[in-house]
């Protein structure tokens, strides 16, 4: 595991694998290694499982359908973090040297683990994609060269939500009241500065209601919201059991679901189904479409599940979080494709993958070409901008499925960008990092 990063080591690993395992794939040494920090156990397993399945299935589909990416197969290895930071670090260290090549890209799937890995991965020259979670200020690629926040950060999410609310209120928010129900931890606190800034700019009253982990206890919170504060709109940054409990308690105090919007981690089938009929009308943000009406998703059914749709459904096919896993896999693979255009169709190093993500551009045509037309909006990253200018939309639960309920909303990045830069600059100062030049 102390192997230096060179081809010899990779070859040696491959030889070792070949000798230890009799039935080794002849092309194993040609495989690009994708480590997966997933969670299929622990308190957040219900949300972690569909995501992990989507990620795994998309990669498996590419291997089956196209024989990998430009002839390079993908070797995918999972480790269960149980959404626990120390286990996440342990998994990172374990998986780091466990594949046939250098890890292509890390997807920690937890804000806490992202925080714990930023320094390690930067030291190891391994890129991290924290897709819709993690540090918002990592969008400043000068301070965080190895961390990517595409397609949108929590700050951008908060901005998009307020834009939607403003639109619904006829373009004026002054005098309105907006509440935020948030998980009392790193994740839930992310949107607060943005919302506070917007409340000053737009003239609405903002009040936050923290919910202690894991979020089974929200009676007092909702009595305050539903019976005392009575906000015009309520936003939510919740995860796992907190979401369904919030929806139930909101319904119990008679809060209208149409005025209740969750962030993208608070808008999956897991969150609304335990609440039953009460959840009908509940809204959430999303940055990719739900459902199975995409050729690429159908390819998964055909290739991975041999056309057995029922079995695919058992593996959460078309579930919001499943599609998010697919989205994450798409972004990772497209970055690999981009890097291959630069470095040739071969197994890439972490540093080369980093270049690939940084120069990633997915246009509407490209989404269509992948069989995912309308799945997500175009994004384009650069050396400075590690967020890529993605947009989001509002989806609504109609009792049976999630329906898209708004146009794409582009967060106001001219306002957000200075905030990213200020926060990143403070991080750089504390850590003694000299931001790199981007030209």
């Amino acid at each position: 595991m102390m192997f230096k990063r060179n081809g010899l080591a990779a070859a040696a690993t491959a030889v070792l694998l070949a000798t230890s395992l009799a039935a080794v794939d002849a092309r194993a040494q040609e495989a690009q290694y994708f480590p997966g920090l997933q969670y299929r156990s622990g308190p957040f397993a219900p949300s972690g499982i569909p995501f992990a399945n989507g990620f795994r299935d998309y990669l498996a589909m590419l291997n089956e359908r196209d024989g990998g990416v430009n002839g390079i197969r993908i070797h995918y290895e999972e480790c269960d973090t149980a959404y626990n930071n120390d286990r996440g670090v342990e998994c990172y260290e374990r998986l780091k040297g466990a594949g046939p090549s250098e890890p292509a890209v890390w997807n920690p799937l937890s804000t806490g683990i992202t925080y714990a890995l930023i320094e390690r991965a930067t030291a190891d020259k391994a890129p991290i994609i924290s897709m819709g979670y993690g540090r918002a200020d990592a969008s400043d690629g000068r301070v965080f060269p190895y961390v990517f926040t595409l397609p949108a950060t929590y700050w951008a999410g908060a901005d998009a939500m307020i834009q939607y609310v403003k639109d619904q209120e006829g373009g004026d928010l002054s005098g309105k009241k907006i509440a935020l129900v948030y998980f009392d931890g790193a994740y839930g606190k992310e949107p607060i500065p943005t919302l506070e800034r917007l409340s000053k700019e737009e003239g609405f009253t903002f009040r936050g209601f923290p919910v202690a982990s894991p979020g089974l206890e929200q009676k007092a919170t909702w009595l305050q919201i539903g019976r005392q504060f009575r906000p015009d709109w309520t936003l939510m940054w919740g995860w796992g059991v907190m979401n369904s409990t919030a929806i139930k308690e909101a319904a119990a105090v008679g809060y209208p679901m149409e005025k209740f919007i969750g962030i993208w981690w608070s808008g999956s089938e897991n969150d609304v189904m335990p609440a039953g009929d009460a959840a009908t009308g509940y809204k959430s943000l999303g940055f990719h479409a739900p459902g199975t009406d995409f050729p690429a998703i159908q390819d998964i059914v055909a290739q991975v599940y041999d056309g057995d749709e029922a079995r695919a459904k058992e593996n959460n096919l078309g579930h919001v979080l499943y599609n998010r896993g697919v989205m994450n896999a798409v972004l990772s693979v497209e970055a690999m494709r981009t890097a291959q255009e630069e470095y040739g169709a071969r197994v890439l190093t972490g540093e080369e993958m980093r270049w690939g993500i940084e120069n990633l551009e997915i246009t509407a045509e490209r989404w269509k070409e992948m069989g995912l037309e309308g799945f997500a909006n175009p994004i384009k990253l650069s050396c400075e901008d590690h967020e890529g200018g993605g947009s989001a939309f509002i989806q609504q639960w109609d009792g049976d499925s999630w329906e898209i309920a708004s146009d794409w909303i582009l967060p106001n990045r001219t306002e957000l960008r200075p905030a990213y830069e200020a926060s990143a600059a403070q991080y750089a100062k504390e850590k003694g990092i000299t931001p790199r030049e981007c030209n």
Partner: protein
Amino acid sequence: MLYREAGQFKTSYGADQAIFPIRQDRIALVLFAGIAVLAVPVLASNYFLETIFVPFLVFALAALGLNILTGYCGQLSLGTGGFMACGAFFSYKLAVGIPELHIVLVFLLAGLGTAAVGVLFGLPSLRIKGFYLAVATLAAQFFLVWVFNKFPWWTNYSPSGVISAPPRDVLPGLAVTGAGGAPAVKYLFLLVFVAVLALVAKNLVRSRIGRTWMATRDMDIAAEIIGIRPLWAKLSAFAVSSFYIGIAGALWAFVYTGSVEALAFQIDRSFQVLFMVIIGGLGSILGSFLGAAFIVLLPILLSNVPSLLGLQISVEIISHLEFMVFGALIVFFLVVEPHGLARLWQIAKEKLRLWPFPY
């Protein structure tokens, strides 16, 4: 045959009071220290150093602290996580606020601060006992984590409430915190630091103060009657224990993970350390180390076993199996030896003395 002290005469009080009175033990200790200092950093891979040895040493220190309170003084505490959080956040504020302060000094000062907090939350122990005392320490646990989570001053107004350790050197050029710290350096630093603190603890529990703790543990009323002040005994145990736990928390945040939020010190952490103490052996310094090794290593070992054996089991099943085996092993060890791994070790030594000719 080999492990026999026949012929080793003690001719001075010093020799009689040695921590390791038997020559073979001393030889083993030197060998062990040699391996730990010389062989481990060279031979172990970064994975082993970073994810096994470093957390093991940090947890061993925390377990040592809790063992002083629970094992030696008999006060059940479930507030370990809260006290670790104290150490972590105190040292963060110190290290960032006074950058000139040497990192070792930062850790020690953070430990002292935690000791003060520990004494405060130890006050109810004068009136409440046993499982009921657990509530006082649980109040500390939840309250302290809440404080560090709620007030952004502790995190220097970081928007998400996560602190990340500033890079600091222990000797010029040898970074132990931040990403610049080489795993081997971190490991050696921790090794020395923890070894010194363990030596202090060992001597504390052999001295007068340790004996007052043990008397209080065995029966506090009786101890009071023979002239031990329960106030002094209990509060000093809380102070010393919190000092160790606070340093462990600081090391956790600075040396092990590098960045930490208050939620990392939730009640699970308290339970984890308590398991170590009970599995390792209540009232044993060695037990703290054995318990920490057991609790840190076992889950990692269990989750690695299937891949080492070349079995293709889904990650999900592995996690669930890991839970089951972990639970079953705890019960198994308790049934085999309720007094912990330290007692097992002692029994093994007794047997070894007579081996190969037991009578």
